[in-house]
């Protein structure tokens, strides 16, 4: 059995932890090894950064009145539309409408409360949105 190289690179996204993988030892038997992969680190970091970029872009869109605060909190909570729709219990087409500023203004407190609960914030955080400050 050919030997597999066990990566021992730093992965800062794991906060000092290491994961485990199976690989053959010198006797050809499989056992677990702790490892650290900077490939995994890069992929995770990029996914985290993408949500940060989406949040920033969303703040600009809120300033120029196209997006709603719901979209901001969606990205802040690392959700996409299907996930948010599933969690809040609305159809995706409805959620898409709520992400637009012009529709957001017309939303009643009952709907806003549902979103607030999902995001762990208050209705005022949505209504009186202060650009995430």
């Amino acid at each position: 059995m050919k030997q597999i190289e066990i990566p021992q690179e730093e992965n800062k996204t794991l906060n000092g932890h290491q994961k485990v993988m199976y690989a053959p030892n010198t006797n050809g038997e499989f056992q677990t090894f702790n490892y650290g992969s900077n490939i995994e680190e890069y992929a995770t970091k990029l996914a985290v950064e993408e949500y940060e970029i989406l949040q920033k872009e969303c703040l600009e869109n809120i300033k120029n009145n196209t997006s709603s605060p719901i979209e901001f909190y969606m990205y802040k909570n690392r959700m996409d539309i299907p996930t948010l729709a599933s969690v809040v219990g609305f159809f995706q087409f409805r959620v898409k409408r709520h992400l637009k500023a012009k529709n957001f203004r017309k939303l009643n407190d009952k709907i806003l409360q549902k979103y607030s609960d999902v995001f762990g914030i208050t209705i005022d955080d949505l209504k009186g949105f202060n650009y995430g400050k």
Partner: protein
Amino acid sequence: MENSFKHNQFAHCESGVVSTLLTNYGLPISEPMAFGITHSLTFFYFPLIKLNNMPLIAYREVPKNIIKNIDKRLGVKIYKKQYKNMVEANNELTRLVQDENKLVGLQTSVYYLPYMPEDMRFHFNAHNLLVYGKENDEYLISDPVFEDVVRAKENKLTIARFAKGVFAPKGFLYYPQSIPKNIDYENILKKSIKKNAKSMTTPFPFAGVKGMKKLANAIEKIQNNNDERYVKNYLTHIVRMQEEIGTGGGGFRFLYSAFLQEAKQYNLDNNKLQTASELITQSGDILREFALKCVMGAKNIDRLNSQEIAKSLVEASKIEEEAFKILKTI
């Protein structure tokens, strides 16, 4: 349970939990066995289903496949419960781990687990962990992908147990209730290995080795996409799906190879097991190389050669095809 429980770290949450539970309740089953007996190795590429705007890619069977099949395959009886009421869910968990000193498995959302590193918090509702005790209002947790035991306050764990969305756990709790006396491993392993080999060589174009080739085609086409941000995210998404919580570097492949090695004790054709195990290990290694190429491609997007990247995936698919053709005849 608190004093006598020994925590272990595993490659994958569901197989780790099932292995620990069965072993604890009197049936020593390793993680590779739990994974292999439930024929959990797979590949699935479905561009029409999107996750963060990216195509769905899976390297192992759907969550709960191990829990659902382990009782069928081994004849173990597993108590399974979901709850509508959070108070009832906590009362039962407390009673089981505190009063009855039992070890119990739970399905939870990664996003809401308080001990999860910040960068790892994504919405994935099918993470499995073990609870082995309770101290005041804190549950003592053995999370299979962490090196040491962790803790979570009841209110926080409840949020993780009742997260909504895809694969919503609904407080799902499970533990073995009875272990059969005689288990016919030889026949069970033969069936499971054949079943897994069939699913990896399925004619359905989006699954198994055909699915790997389909994804490879899609990766080749990305060369012509001018949206650099999308291409970067696409390539790293593929890597994340491969490396998802609990595994690393085509890790499910190494896990399955470990299973095939362990299966040698049960009167099957050991030459076939050895050959297939070596091939699947090789595939896991190539998939790691593939992941590296994806990341390098994303880092140096101006010099992207997606055909080169796709080649590795095709190579892995051919090797797996050879391995599973052998295993079909076990």
